């Protein structure tokens, strides 16, 4: 048995196994749960990197459950049209890398962060399940499997958001909102699956993509899928759950929730690019996505400026940054049917949008972690009550500056690289969009200057006399993210050429996507 063929399933199976082992381990040794979680996720991270190397050198991978090829006929004559499978191409593994890094660092950060909580084993179990759900959403090649993983991720994240709900009211309230929103979106996805199945008798993404006709029913399915996936990604005007859920979840969970929202964003791109591609009216759908993006950017940032709760402020910025991704990819979609424009600026715009997904996961994760460190030491998230913390928490201050500079798009950091790609390509499509994006970026900077000023600067306050630097595991997680941010900012070419460009091409070229599965059929 060659284990290297089974990497895709091992990435998911190991955290899943660990998740159900944890309650048992907890009986034996309470402290081992966190370490086991970290171990399982580090194995997952290593396997994801190995798989990424394989995919980027060899090509897309298909992992079929219970068979060696997608359409194997058993000796008894039993034949499945298309089996259940994982289909992992450059775009999936791009998202998978983000998830692996974020969940691993989230687990490390949690080692210190959860010291004040009861029932830590359940916390870790849910964290692992959430990771499994996100990985599954990104890797699966089967649309019904996607629904199942979506639900796993939703249920785990709701339980984690309302984790502190035993003692406080607000987390329960946020959890309720998120649960209603995510079950409605999952059910609408299921309804769309029913529509596809009724028409084509297929559940596989690639097989569906090869026969899809863009009939009236397909339009209805698209009309169900785009809003609900945008809702799960937190785009305005379906963003009402985002600030609540992000601000009430424990900080490391918020970081992983950002990755979960991005998995929905990935699914949205997969649907419009790999499933429908140019069979749909790309200009109209592209503009719909661009308008979602514009609204998210602008409303997100204007709402962020007036916030007083540090995590709520960052959550509104998360909405605003999602807008950039939608804008970049939306422009790419709008010119998809026009090869010249696509080559001229469409691909660059998409590269900017996709690269921004990874950058956003890193710097927003870092910012949420610094907010978590402040909360951990001071016990408050209210900016008006903070002040002078730079005297006590030097490392956290530095990490916050790095994260804030990256999100505002200042040069040596990664946010600048992806935002510049978006500005210069979107300008060729429509100058106004580019100008709005720049204005939003300036407002972002203004709002983070405010946070920096009110939380870190100023004289030493008497009530924070006891405040110390964050514990070591939290500093470690933040330091790793900072290094990644600086590395991406200094060598954006390296990342764009080796990771982002293949991801964009695998989205654009539908034939390549269907060909990996259907091949000789």
């Amino acid at each position, binding site marked *: 048995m060659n284990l290297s063929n089974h990497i895709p399933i091992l990435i998911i199976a190991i955290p899943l196994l660990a998740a159900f082992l944890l309650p048992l381990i907890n009986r034996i040794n309470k402290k081992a749960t966190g370490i086991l979680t970290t171990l399982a996720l580090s194995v997952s991270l290593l396997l994801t990197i190995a798989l990424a190397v394989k995919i980027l050198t060899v090509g897309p991978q298909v992992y079929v459950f219970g068979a060696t090829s997608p359409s194997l006929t058993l000796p008894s004559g039993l034949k499945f049209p298309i089996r259940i499978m994982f289909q992992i191409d450059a775009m999936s593994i791009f998202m998978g890398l983000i998830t692996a890094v974020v969940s691993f660092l989230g687990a490390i950060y949690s080692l210190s962060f959860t010291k004040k909580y009861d029932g830590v084993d359940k916390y870790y179990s849910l964290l692992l399940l959430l990771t499994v759900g996100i990985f599954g959403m990104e890797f699966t090649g089967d649309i019904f499997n996607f629904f*199942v993983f979506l*639900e796993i991720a939703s249920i785990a994240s709701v339980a984690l958001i309302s984790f502190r709900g035993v003692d406080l009211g607000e987390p329960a*309230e946020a959890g309720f909102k998120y649960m*209603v929103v995510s079950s409605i979106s999952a059910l609408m996805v*299921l309804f769309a699956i*029913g529509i596809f*199945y009724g028409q084509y008798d297929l559940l596989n993404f690639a097989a569906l993509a090869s026969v899809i006709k863009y009939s009236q029913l397909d339009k209805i399915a698209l009309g169900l899928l785009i809003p609900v996936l945008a809702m799960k990604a937190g785009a305005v005007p379906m963003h009402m759950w985002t600030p609540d859920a992000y601000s009430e979840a424990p900080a490391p969970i918020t970081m992983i929730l950002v990755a979960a929202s991005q998995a929905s964003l990935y699914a949205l791109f997969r649907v419009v690019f790999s499933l429908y591609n140019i069979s749909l009216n790309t200009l109209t759908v592209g503009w719909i996505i661009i308008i979602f993006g514009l609204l998210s950017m602008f409303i997100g940032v204007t709402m962020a400026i007036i916030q007083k709760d540090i995590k709520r402020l960052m959550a509104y910025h998360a909405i605003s940054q999602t807008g950039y991704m939608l804008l970049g990819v939306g422009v790419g979609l709008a010119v998809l049917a026009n090869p010249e424009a696509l080559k001229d600026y469409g691909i660059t715009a998409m590269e900017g949008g996709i690269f921004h997904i990874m950058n956003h996961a890193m710097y927003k994760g870092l910012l949420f972690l610094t907010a978590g460190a402040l909360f951990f030491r001071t016990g408050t998230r209210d900016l008006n009550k903070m002040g002078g913390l730079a005297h006590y928490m030097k490392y956290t201050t530095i990490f916050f500056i790095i994260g804030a500079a990256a999100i505002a798009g200042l040069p040596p950091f990664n946010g600048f690289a992806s935002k510049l790609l978006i500005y210069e390509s979107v300008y060729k499509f429509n100058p106004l969009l580019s100008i709005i994006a720049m204005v939003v970026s300036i407002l972002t900077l203004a709002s983070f200057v405010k946070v920096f000023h009110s939380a870190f600067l100023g004289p030493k306050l008497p009530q924070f006399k006891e405040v110390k630097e964050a514990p070591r595991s939290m500093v470690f997680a933040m330091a790793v993210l900072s290094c990644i941010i600086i590395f991406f900012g200094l060598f954006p070419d390296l990342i764009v050429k080796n990771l982002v460009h293949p991801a964009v091409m695998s989205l654009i070229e539908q034939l390549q996507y269907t060909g990996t599965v259907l091949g000789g059929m």
Partner: protein
Amino acid sequence: MIGNLPYVAVVIFIGLGIYTLMFKKNLIKIAIGVVLIQNGVNLFLITLGYRKGAVAPIYTYAPSGQIMVLPTPQALTLTSIVIGIATTALILSVAMMIYKHYGTLDTDQVRRLKG
């Protein structure tokens, strides 16, 4: 015509569910709205696989020549029902926690998070 009645039921289920979500202010009723939509979608899937006069899709025991209902939608529905139970249980338990802290289930008063 009569064969389309289940689809009408699907529309009624989902319509009632959405109505409940939009206009009812009790958290338990909102949970019921979610369940109504779940049932509508499940009924939709099952109806897709129905064939008139067909037998259960058990390959080895079916009389030869008899048509069968489609097994895949039934498998999908079963999965979806199980997920639905987990979702409903979680929604209700969160509603319980909210009741414990706020002393009410009225959405107008459960509003500490805003702005």
